[in-house]
C-alpha cells in the first residue's frame, strides 16, 4: 500500500496496513485513543472474525447490551448457560442408557454360554442385542454433533463403542473384561460433558445472585430504620414480574422463533432481558405508590 495519510498510527507511524491489527486514524487524539489501541491489540483477530460473522454494527450493539446486562439484570444471563447444558445433561443420560443396554446384553449372552462362534442365539440374547442397537441409534439421532466431537480424536480402525453399535455389541459379547464398556467414564472425561456440570451451577447461581441482592436491599433498609415493609413489597413485586416476563418471553420465543442461527438466540435473549429490565424498572418506580395507597385504604 502506498500514499497513506500521515496520521495512521499503531505504536509507530504506519506506512502499510496489515490485517487483524487496529489503527488510530488520528495520532493526535491523545491518551484515550492510545489506551484503546493497546487494549484492542490483543483482541483484534477475534473482533475481526466477530464483525465478519455478525456485522460490525451488531458487534457494537452486542457489547453495549452485554455490558448493561452484567450491571443490571443478572438473572437472564444464566439462561444462556443453562440452555446448552441441559442438552448436555441429556447426552450423559443417553450414554448411560446405551451403556446399561450393552451391559445387559453382555450378561444375557454370557449366561447362555455363548461363544465366539455366532451360530446360535436364543431370542433373549437377540432381544438384548436389538435393545442395545436401538439405544445407540437413539443416541446417534439426537446427539450426532456431540458424538462426532467425542469420537473425532479416536484412531481405532474398527471403531469404538461410542462410534458404532456393531463394535459395542461385539465387545460386550466377547471381551473378557468390562473396562472397554465403561463409556460413561470415557465420555465424562471429555470436555463437552464436563462443561454441563460446571455451567448448570452457573445458570441457577445467577438467578440467586439477583434474588440475594434484593434481599440485601431490604435488609439494609431495615437496618437503616426505614420502612422496610414497603421496600420488601417493591422488591418482591418487581422480582416476580421481571422473572415472569423473562420466562414467558423465553418459552414462547423458543416455540416460534428459529433458534438455529446464532443471531436468533441473541435476539431472543436480548428481547427477554430487555423485557425483564423494563418490567423491573417500571415496578420499582410505581409499586411504592401502590403500597402507600393500599396501606391508607387498610387503615
Amino acid at each position, binding site marked *: 500500500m502506498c500514499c497513506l495519510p500521515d496520521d495512521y498510527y499503531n505504536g509507530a507511524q504506519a506506512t502499510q496496513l496489515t490485517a487483524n491489527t487496529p489503527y488510530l486514524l488520528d495520532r493526535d487524539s491523545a491518551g484515550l485513543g492510545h489506551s484503546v489501541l493497546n487494549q484492542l491489540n490483543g483482541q483484534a483477530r477475534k473482533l475481526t472474525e466477530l464483525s465478519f460473522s455478525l456485522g460490525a454494527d451488531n458487534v457494537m450493539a452486542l457489547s453495549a447490551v452485554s455490558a448493561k446486562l452484567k450491571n443490571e439484570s443478572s438473572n437472564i444471563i*444464566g439462561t444462556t448457560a443453562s440452555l446448552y447444558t441441559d442438552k448436555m445433561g441429556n447426552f450423559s443420560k443417553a450414554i448411560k442408557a446405551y451403556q446399561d443396554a450393552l451391559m445387559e446384553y453382555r450378561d444375557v449372552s454370557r449366561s447362555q454360554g455363548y461363544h465366539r462362534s455366532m451360530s446360535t442365539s436364543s431370542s433373549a440374547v437377540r432381544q438384548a442385542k436389538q435393545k442395545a442397537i436401538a439405544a445407540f441409534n437413539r443416541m446417534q439421532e*439426537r446427539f450426532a454433533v456431540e458424538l462426532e466431537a467425542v469420537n473425532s480424536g479416536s484412531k481405532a480402525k474398527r471403531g469404538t463403542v461410542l462410534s458404532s453399535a456393531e463394535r459395542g455389541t461385539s465387545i460386550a459379547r466377547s471381551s473378557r473384561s468390562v473396562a472397554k464398556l465403561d463409556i460413561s467414564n470415557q465420555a465424562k472425561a471429555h470436555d463437552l460433558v464436563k462443561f454441563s456440570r460446571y455451567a448448570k451451577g452457573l445458570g441457577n447461581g445467577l438467578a440467586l445472585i439477583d434474588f440475594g441482592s434484593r434481599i440485601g436491599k431490604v435488609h439494609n433498609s431495615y437496618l437503616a430504620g426505614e420502612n422496610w415493609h414497603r421496600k420488601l413489597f417493591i422488591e418482591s*413485586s418487581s422480582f416476580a414480574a421481571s422473572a415472569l416476563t423473562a420466562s414467558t418471553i423465553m*418459552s414462547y420465543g*423458543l416455540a416460534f422463533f428459529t433458534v438455529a442461527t446464532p443471531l436468533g438466540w441473541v435476539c431472543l435473549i436480548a428481547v427477554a432481558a430487555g423485557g425483564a429490565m423494563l418490567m423491573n424498572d417500571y415496578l420499582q418506580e410505581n409499586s411504592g405508590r*401502590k403500597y402507600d395507597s393500599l396501606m391508607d385504604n387498610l387503615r
Partner: protein
Amino acid sequence: MNEIEDTLLTIGLIGLFFTMILYVLFGQVTVRKLRKNKETKDSLGIEFASGWDILNVALALSRPKWLEKRIMASPTAHFAADAKVLYQYTNRFDRILGRLFSFFSLTTTLMLLALALADAVGLFD
C-alpha cells in the same frame, strides 16, 4: 399519574399475586408428583433455571392440539414438556390447576408488559 394507568396497575398487581400463589400451588400439588415419578421425570422440558419445569408442564397441559403438533414438529421440540406422557399421569384437577396458572400468568405478564411499554412510550401523559 393517570387514572386509567393506576387502575390497570392495580389489576396487574392483583393478577401477579394470584399468579405467584398458583405457581407455588401447582408446583407442589402436581409437578412435585411428576418429578418423583420415574416415567415422567425426564419429560418435563428443558430447565433454564430451577423451577422452569413448572411453567413447562402448565403450558403443555393447556395447549390446544394444533399448537402441540406444530411445536413437536419444530426443531426445538425437546425444550417443551411432553404432553402425551403428562396427560397419562395427571388427573382432571391437576390439568385445571395448570390451565388456570398458565392463563393467569400469560394474561398478567402481557398486561403488565403492555402497561410498562405504554408508560415508556409516553402514552399516558
